[in-house]
């Protein structure tokens, strides 16, 4: 596994993505998202499926839920040693699964609820930074260990197989979440690897992605400037890191973060008013390395919000719908209608235009 | 009408305009044959004048109020109604050289026979006169002033 991980290939393929959020914060079980993603079975090829769910650990919402996979017991021991050294582990337990006829070869799946104390030698680093560092360290340094996710009150569940089978394997109907995102994978050139399935996650960011980032080579180098090591086989991780960089570290509002990643074309910028134009030019000039080129549509989850957006020419499909408090973002309208037959509104967002789902005012989930 | 503008500052004095003028007005229109067999019978309608580093290729200016036409006693020198070019009808020319006397540019010559006048005809039948087309430095530029 370690050698495979070092392979710099990025994942290429067409895929299915879907995401459902209840903006009232009302949580709902995972069978809905499974039905939605199952509807797009044909878009994946059984080499990967996965989910991220928000609001699933309300009783431990001050702790980072680290979902990990290990190919070997040694890896688990090494990781736990590292965890003991760097963090306070409040709870360690296997991630519940059920035997499933379509799923085999699963790795050791374990979750840890942790906190990290401030590093006195590096007072400028907050707990989030330390968690990211730990996440990167495990992925980069511990052989055969891999972090699925490490965010508060959320978690990623993924593996090799069709997404609906993975969902059943992870017994997702037993979790309640206010955001569910899911992914069915159709990789064209990598063999299945559990860590390689979507979503990709950093802190509470989780991303499902349909497409290919042709700017991956420079995005990766750009992120490295800011301490993000892209060690995975897929380009999806750069999106996760990019969101983290732009929104968490640089504090850009969502619109601007998205306009860095999928900026308007220069000829559109030329038509803007002076202030807007200066802003757009500055973003493109400064954040050129963050521009995500190539065809993609993503659904991004983070605490309290779900974002859908696509590349600036919208070379991958994305359709949205609303029904009451619920926001649906999916590759296909059918995947929405199968769980919500009669939505209030269905629309196709513009290329590069972010679609945002947010918890209603006053709703607290953490 | 079409006019050839002479861009003095771009003339490199190579003389290719003269060469191609001779070819164009030869019977064979083959450069080798034109120079081997017909050269003595053709006076090019363009002439490169040189003085130190200065040079320019001069051909009939096809003046608006052409003094050669005014001076021509036979009517041989005339303006082509279609192209506006000043042409010499050698059938009617008697070689009185009134045109040579009148042309302020010195752009009318005695033809090779010494009997009739010879001058630039703007390359009848060509879209672009050959001196213009073959000038390697665009020192001759064809312009259309719109007037007829």
């Amino acid at each position, binding site marked *: 596994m370690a050698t495979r991980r070092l392979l710099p290939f990025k994942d290429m393929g067409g895929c299915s993505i879907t995401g459902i959020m209840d903006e009232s914060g009302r949580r709902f079980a995972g069978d809905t998202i499974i039905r939605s993603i199952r509807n797009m079975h044909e878009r994946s090829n059984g080499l990967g499926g996965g989910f991220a769910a928000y609001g699933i650990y309300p009783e431990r919402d001050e702790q980072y839920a680290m979902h990990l996979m290990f190919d070997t017991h040694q890896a688990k021991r090494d990781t736990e040693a590292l965890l003991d050294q760097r963090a306070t582990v409040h709870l360690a337990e296997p991630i519940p699964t059920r035997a499933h006829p379509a799923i085999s070869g699963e790795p050791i799946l374990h979750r840890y609820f942790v906190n990290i104390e401030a590093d006195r030698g590096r007072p400028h680093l907050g707990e989030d930074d330390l968690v990211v560092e730990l996440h990167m360290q495990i992925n980069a340094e511990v052989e055969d260990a891999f972090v699925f996710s490490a965010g508060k009150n959320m978690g990623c569940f993924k593996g090799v197989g069709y997404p609906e089978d993975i969902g059943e394997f992870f017994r997702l109907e037993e979790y309640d979440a206010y955001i569910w995102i899911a992914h069915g994978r159709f990789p064209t050139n990598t063999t299945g690897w559990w860590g390689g399935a979507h979503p990709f996650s950093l802190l509470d960011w989780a991303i499902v992605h349909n497409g290919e980032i042709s700017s991956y080579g420079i995005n*990766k180098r750009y992120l490295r400037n800011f301490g993000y090591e892209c060690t995975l086989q897929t380009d999806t991780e750069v999106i996760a890191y990019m969101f983290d960089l732009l929104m968490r570290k640089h504090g850009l*509002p969502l619109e601007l973060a998205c306009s860095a990643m999928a900026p308007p074309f220069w000829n559109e910028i030329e038509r803007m008013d002076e202030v807007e134009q200066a802003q757009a030019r*500055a973003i493109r000039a400064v954040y050129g390395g963050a521009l995500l080129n190539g065809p993609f549509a993503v659904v991004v989850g983070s605490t309290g919000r779900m974002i859908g957006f696509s590349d600036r020419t919208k070379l991958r499909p994305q359709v949205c719908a609303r029904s009451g408090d619920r926001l649906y973002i999916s590759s296909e309208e059918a995947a929405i209608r199968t769980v919500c037959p009669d939505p209030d509104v269905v629309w196709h967002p513009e290329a590069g235009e972010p679609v945002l789902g947010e918890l209603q005012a006053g709703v607290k989930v953490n | 009408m079409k006019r050839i503008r002479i861009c003095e500052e771009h003339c*490199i004095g190579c003389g290719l305009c003269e060469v191609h003028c001779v070819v164009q007005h030869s019977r064979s229109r083959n450069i080798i044959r034109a120079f081997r067999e017909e050269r003595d019978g053709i006076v090019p309608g363009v002439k490169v004048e040189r003085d130190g580093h200065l040079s320019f290729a001069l051909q009939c200016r096809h003046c608006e109020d052409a003094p050669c036409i005014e001076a021509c006693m036979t009517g041989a020198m005339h303006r082509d109604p279609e192209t506006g070019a000043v042409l010499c009808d050698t059938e009617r020319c008697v070689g009185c050289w009134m045109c040579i006397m009148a042309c302020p540019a010195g752009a009318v010559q005695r033809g090779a026979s010494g009997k009739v006048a010879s001058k630039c005809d703007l390359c009848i039948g060509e879209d672009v006169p050959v001196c213009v087309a*073959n000038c390697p430095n665009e020192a001759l530029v064809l312009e259309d002033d719109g007037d007829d």
Partner: protein
Amino acid sequence: MPEWLTQAEFVIERDPERCIQCKVCVRQCANEVHRFDAELGEVFSDSDKCVGCHRCVSLCPTNALSVRQVELDFRSNANWTPQAIRNIYKQAEQGGVLLTGMGNPEPLPVYWDRMLLNASQVTNPSIDPLREPMELLTYLGAKPTRLKYEGGDEPRLETELGPQLELQVPVMFSTMSYGSISYNASLALARAASEVGTYANTGEGGLHAGIRPFAKNMIVQVASGRFGVDADYLNAAAAVEIKIGQGAKPGIGGHLPGEKVTAEISATRMIPLGTDAISPAPHHDIYSIEDLRQLIYAIKETTRYRKPVGVKIAAVHHIAAIASGAVRAGADFVAIDGYRGGTGAAPTMIRNNVGIPIEFALAAVDARLREEGIRQDASLVVAGSFRCAADVVKAIALGADACYIGTGALVAMGCHLCQKCYTGRCNWGIATQDPYLTRRLNPNIAVRRLVNLLESWRHEIKEIMGGMGINAVESLRGNRDHLRGIGLTDRELNALGIQMAGE
């Protein structure tokens, strides 16, 4: 003593069947190779004086002339090449330093040719640049690491972006001074840059009054001779470049002989008429990096921080550290000139043997600046023999923001690379001040050809990017994933930071 050991390098063949004795060749050769014998009525040629510039061949209306290199005039010897022998004869006869012009012609590896580009297949649609946007707009200049916004419903940009050069195509015309090239050539470069929306560089030739109208598309250079430099000059241009070194002659100054310092050049360079224009090897006020910083900030003060100030350095050993120093000294862009970069005149030994390939220099500098987290503090411009659009794409993928083309631009204007620029007798009217020769370059034609060249490259770059599925140049820049090496050793691949073809 007659130079009897020096042999003709070229042989001129005149086809008697085709020659029409039109004397065009006689008039066009400034080296007086062709001569018309009025008595015999025939043109004769003297191969000894031929420099192989092909002016006569190009203009001969009957294709009666051919000029060929003399191949076997010495007993063959793989070590003692004809050039090596000739050089020794020349030095034995004349003494002195061997001089030459243009870039390094030696058969050293061209690494661009050992890198191949990627294209999309199936999973990622390639893009047709004729139907869809394909963006090459490039900003050169220091950029902040991040933008700060004032919050609120309508976020307002707080960070002010420093001065930037806006390039419609990531290719600029390299430093070529008025003096080393003719006024017409300088003018053509400036006009073409302004037409295309890129920049031309004055070199240290000053800014001629006739070129000033195009100054907003000019980068003015401040070199060790400080020719033509005053506050007006600095403020007239779009950007200022401090020249530390030149790829063709790192560590060497420049020398424009007095006879080339015409009235116009004297006025433009602000030096006395007819005096030698000598650029010292170093700037005598820059003996270390902190001195460079002082000069950079002196220029920034003079230009009220409204112009990007760059530093041009030759690609030499430790280039990454040097470039990093320049960036830290405040350069808004760093121009690196590789060892194949051109020149109007350089000692042959220096040109052919000093410096390193731009490919390695670029790879090292880009990586180093990223490692140090200062890549966005300066743009990287690379120079040193970009021959085609693919070279440019490869350079950008390797990490450059833009390329400088010098030789390519001259070739577009007609240069035949005879390498005799230093003689001042350029038959193509480019590297000369002789009024008889300079008129051979009609700036209107030269502008058209330069614009055509950049437009073609622009189209080709777009095609290549479209093939990769990239529609903005910022996604190509530094994207080494799109490069693969062939015939390179592991060390070379690592140095370039690319993988091997097939990986």
